[in-house]
């Protein structure tokens, strides 16, 4: 049940022609693609497309009970009393748990333990869990949860992050989660041209296709097993064990298939009550979240307010950037400190800036909780600094791409954090590639009924009111955990009779790690059949599936383990031939000596043998940002340039993204088709953030927590994605030289779309998502 490429199926909606096909060396060959660089398909594609793949919501256990969670209907309230008698007395109800029933730690958090398992004195956001029920039928559980009487005293919600500084403390830890004042260079310097801007970024929801679900099964030894689509099983196990008051080895998290994850899964507000109820009742307990619960429960992208002042000289070279960044964390810290570090460090973008003064804050409010969503921090600032670059270009009368090219970062330049960019940074090459790519044809020569205008087929769009705009976005993102996080992953490779198994707790969330692991073992050992074992916490930790870490760290661990197996395999032969193992090579299923004198098949050499090896990969350490926001905080960086072409109906303000031309810094292409799918998926998520996705709240209460009210991009909204160039400049410190590819298109796309809408309408476009009222043409246009 190891999770495989869940997102590929959804991204296949983008039927696009790309430059990738030509670079796929295996495409013309008849044999099954194998090894690094080939488009190896995911192993479970068939089961997933046929609907037979078991996700957590499909699991079943004999005698299971159903859970329901009571959530707060208020954004901020004091709890005066909780009365569960009526609920507990309902026929079919087996257990009701509240804060009083948590045997261990009463607060938890993947990074900072500041979130209560169940709210008891105050509720701090709409949807915060208060109690949970286990019953013999899901409807009984829901009715019983609704029958729990909670007496609230309403408190004023703090919903404006600017008000959070002066508001009464929402949490014992205070309202300010982190403040980074980055100081780099001379504050007195000024430029000849100065542009200012204020930008607002909305609340994007990860909106996984499969909502949260889980099954908790009590163990005879007093422990519990949690079957969930966790993306960070060991952290989830540790926090669950702490809350249950158990040793970590008594709690086992078994990862089921992940039905989509671009953020942290699973919501602890489900896992913890499930485990508590299973321990309490001695029965398996299952819960499948509704879409509403899913929207209320999991973390979102930080809504952000950004104020910028860019100074440049008369030629358009940046002199100084001043910025203030305010991020809304919601009620709990979660990944906010890391998100702020990324936002502050990348506040100037992939440009050379001699002087930078960036002040960032992340504060608590009573809004829905924020946390890790891919590209967090980096995406919000990208939309703002690219808006500033457009303003500078307009002020100087320069083309947007030209202005950017005069400032781009390259290897050896310094980030405003004082860190030297040591990895490949082919930003200029990326930008030139998208700029020089042929523009899409105007539809004017095609028959009118074939035009797809803003507003959709048969929509209100009228050709005379449509303006086309072209804009650019250049973005960057860091890979792996930052600021001294210990990034380590362990993998085991086992070969029995010519068939290999990879055992690694790296969860395939759809990013394709399971496929990549198979490719690595195929490459190193020359075997065809490689299986990736299902993930659980009995395996050594591999860390969270975030920041592209599994491609790097877990991929590195798998490669090392495979190489150790290779040595075990070749050692006896090499000894017999009197040569070192390095002089033997494995290729196309054969082992040959350097001189060709000795040759055998891999299958023959492996027959009857059982070989095991376990290895770890730990990249070079990083350091936290200091009091001035300085430090070597990041292991690696990835870059992307996107040219957006949009059509805007300037009377209605409806926008259609026609085409996104993408050039990306990927280090090395390990699986062309998978890479293409990752980029298309990222771009589509970015289009959502640019145009429609915003989880709206009124006084802290979520409005329309459903997929009608929260508008994800449909197949008609997803633009043609042209992958113009994949720059393969190997990152020497990364395994295979490859860079993670999923996050940076998400970061860059909204900025590029906003830039194109600016070009089409002449409007400032300083708010994401772009509302129709902001995209109606300027009065004089």
């Amino acid at each position, binding site marked *: 049940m190891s999770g495989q490429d869940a997102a590929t199926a959804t991204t296949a909606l983008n039927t696009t022609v790309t430059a990738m096909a030509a670079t796929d060396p295996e495409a013309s060959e008849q044999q099954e693609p194998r090894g690094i660089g080939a488009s190896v398909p995911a192993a479970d594609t068939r089961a997933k497309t046929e609907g037979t793949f078991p996700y957590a919501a499909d699991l079943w256990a004999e005698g299971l009970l159903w859970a329901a969670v009571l959530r707060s209907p208020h954004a901020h309230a004091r709890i005066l009393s909780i009365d569960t008698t009526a609920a507990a007395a309902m026929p079919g109800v087996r257990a009701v748990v509240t804060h009083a029933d948590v045997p261990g730690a009463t607060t938890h958090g993947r990074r900072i333990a500041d979130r209560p398992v169940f709210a008891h004195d105050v509720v701090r956001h709409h949807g915060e869990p208060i109690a949970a029920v286990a019953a013999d039928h899901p409807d009984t559980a829901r009715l019983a949860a609704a029958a729990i009487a909670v007496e609230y005293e309403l408190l004023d919600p703090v919903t404006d992050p600017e008000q959070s500084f002066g508001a009464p403390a929402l949490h014992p830890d205070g309202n300010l989660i982190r403040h980074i004042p980055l100081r780099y260079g001379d504050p007195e310097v000024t430029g000849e041209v100065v542009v200012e801007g204020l930008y607002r970024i909305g609340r994007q929801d990860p909106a996984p296709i499969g909502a949260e679900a889980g099954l908790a099964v009590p163990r005879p030894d007093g422990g519990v097993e949690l079957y969930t689509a966790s993306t960070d099983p060991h952290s989830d196990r540790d926090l669950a064990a702490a809350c249950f008051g158990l040793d970590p080895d008594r709690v086992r998290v078994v990862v089921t298939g992940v039905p989509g994850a671009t953020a942290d899964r699973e919501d602890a507000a489900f896992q913890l009550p499930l485990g508590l109820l299973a321990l309490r009742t001695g029965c398996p307990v299952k819960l499948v979240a509704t879409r509403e619960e899913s929207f209320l429960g999991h973390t979102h992208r930080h809504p952000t307010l950004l104020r910028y002042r860019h100074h440049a000289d008369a030629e358009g070279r940046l002199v100084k950037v001043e910025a203030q960044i305010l991020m809304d964390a919601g009620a709990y810290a979660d990944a906010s400190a890391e998100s702020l570090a990324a936002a502050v460090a990348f506040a100037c973008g992939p440009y050379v800036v001699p002087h930078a003064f960036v002040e960032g804050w992340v504060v608590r409010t009573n809004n829905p909780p924020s946390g890790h969503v891919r590209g967090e921090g980096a995406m919000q600032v990208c939309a703002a600094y690219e808006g500033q670059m457009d303003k500078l270009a307009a002020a100087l009368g320069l083309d947007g791409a030209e202005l950017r090219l005069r400032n781009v970062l390259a290897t050896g330049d310094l980030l405003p954090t004082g860190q030297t960019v040591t990895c490949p940074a082919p930003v200029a090459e990326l930008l030139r590639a998208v700029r020089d790519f042929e523009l899409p044809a105007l539809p004017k020569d095609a028959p009118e009924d074939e035009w797809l205008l*803003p507003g959709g087929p048969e929509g*209100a769009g009228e050709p005379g009111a449509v303006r086309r705009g072209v804009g650019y976005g250049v973005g960057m993102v860091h890979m792996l955990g930052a600021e001294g996080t210990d990034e380590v992953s362990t993998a085991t490779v086992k070969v029995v009779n010519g068939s290999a198994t990879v055992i690694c707790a790296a969860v395939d969330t759809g990013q394709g790690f399971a496929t990549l692991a198979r490719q690595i073992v195929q490459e190193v050992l020359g075997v065809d059949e490689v299986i990736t074992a299902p993930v659980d916490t009995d395996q050594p930790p591999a860390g969270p599936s975030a920041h592209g870490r599994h491609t790097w760290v877990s991929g590195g661990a798998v490669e090392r383990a495979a190489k150790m197996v290779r040595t075990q395999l070749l050692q006896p032969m090499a000894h017999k031939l009197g040569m070192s193992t390095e002089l033997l090579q494995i290729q196309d299923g054969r082992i040959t000596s350097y001189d060709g004198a000795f040759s055998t098949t891999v299958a023959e050499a492996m027959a009857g043998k059982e070989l095991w090896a376990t290895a770890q990969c730990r990249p070079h350490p990083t350091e936290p940002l200091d009091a001035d926001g300085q430090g070597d905080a990041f292991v690696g960086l990835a870059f992307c340039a996107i040219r957006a072409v949009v059509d805007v109906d300037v009377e*209605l303000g409806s926008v259609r993204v026609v085409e996104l031309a993408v050039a990306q810094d990927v280090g090395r292409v390990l699986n062309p088709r998978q890479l293409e799918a990752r980029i298309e998926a990222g771009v589509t998520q970015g289009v959502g953030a640019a145009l429609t996705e915003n989880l709206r709240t009124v006084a802290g209460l979520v409005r329309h927590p459903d997929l009608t009210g929260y508008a994800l991009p449909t197949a008609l909204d997803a633009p043609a994605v042209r992958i113009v160039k994949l720059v393969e400049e190997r990152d020497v410190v990364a395994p295979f030289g490859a860079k993670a590819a999923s996050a940076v298109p998400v970061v860059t796309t909204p900025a590029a779309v906003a830039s194109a809408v600016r070009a089409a309408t002449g409007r400032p476009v300083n708010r994401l998502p772009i509302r*129709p009222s902001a995209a109606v043409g300027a009065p004089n246009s």
Partner: protein
Amino acid sequence: MTLPASLDEAVAALTAMPAAVPVAGGTDLMAAVNAGLLRPAALVGLGRINEIRGWQYQDGHALLGAGLTHARMGRPDFAALIPALAAAARAAGPPQIRNAGTLGGNIATAAPTGDALPVLAALEAVLVIVGPGGQREIPVSYLLAGREMLRPGELIGFVRVPLLHAPQVFLKATGRTGPGRAVASVGLVLDPARRGVRCAIGAVAPMPLRPLEAEQWVASLIDWDGGRSLAPEALEAFGEYVAAACVPDQGEPVAPGVLHLRRTVAVLARRALGRALTS
């Protein structure tokens, strides 16, 4: 849950169980049930009543069965009869919704964003209600405005719509290119026999709004016997007139949201009339 095979059986079932709720496609009702907003004591399924799944002709009118799905109404044979209703049905959502959702359901739900509603209002459609006391007829706008309600045991059986044999347009503004909820919508029909333009604006108020003065004013300017032409300035003014009538001021200064909505309605009304007159 009962599944009657005829309207009479359905009425009998509803009369026998006053707490039962009729359900056709279920695209609105079941969403409300799933969200916990509604917990019907019983359901009367209308899916097996064949007499309301098609339409028939009746002295210059079409008598549309309330069980017609959006998918069925979107097809070319239906579009040739009532083009605006067909266009609204095609815009009513993704294929899954259009395959299940029905005309009668759209009326009974009476959501402000119901796509068929402005078209029915512009067509001045009449509902044929069946109930324990036999049939009665009420204008669709009476039901949507709450002037008349369905009584216990009653069902929407049919919708009578005039066949106008003239261009009709439905347009809506949404937030995305794919199917979406209307921010504002317009149904506009020409009635050459009565030399009338009828127009209704959806989604901006709890029910579709008819800008009657604007309709009369613009109808008086159209050259009905000739090419039905209209000066661009008149089209523009019609849009503004409709918008001013349907999106009222809410005090000074006018909120930016109101300004944008008014502009959207003006553009939709102008484009709808322009398309109707040139097609």
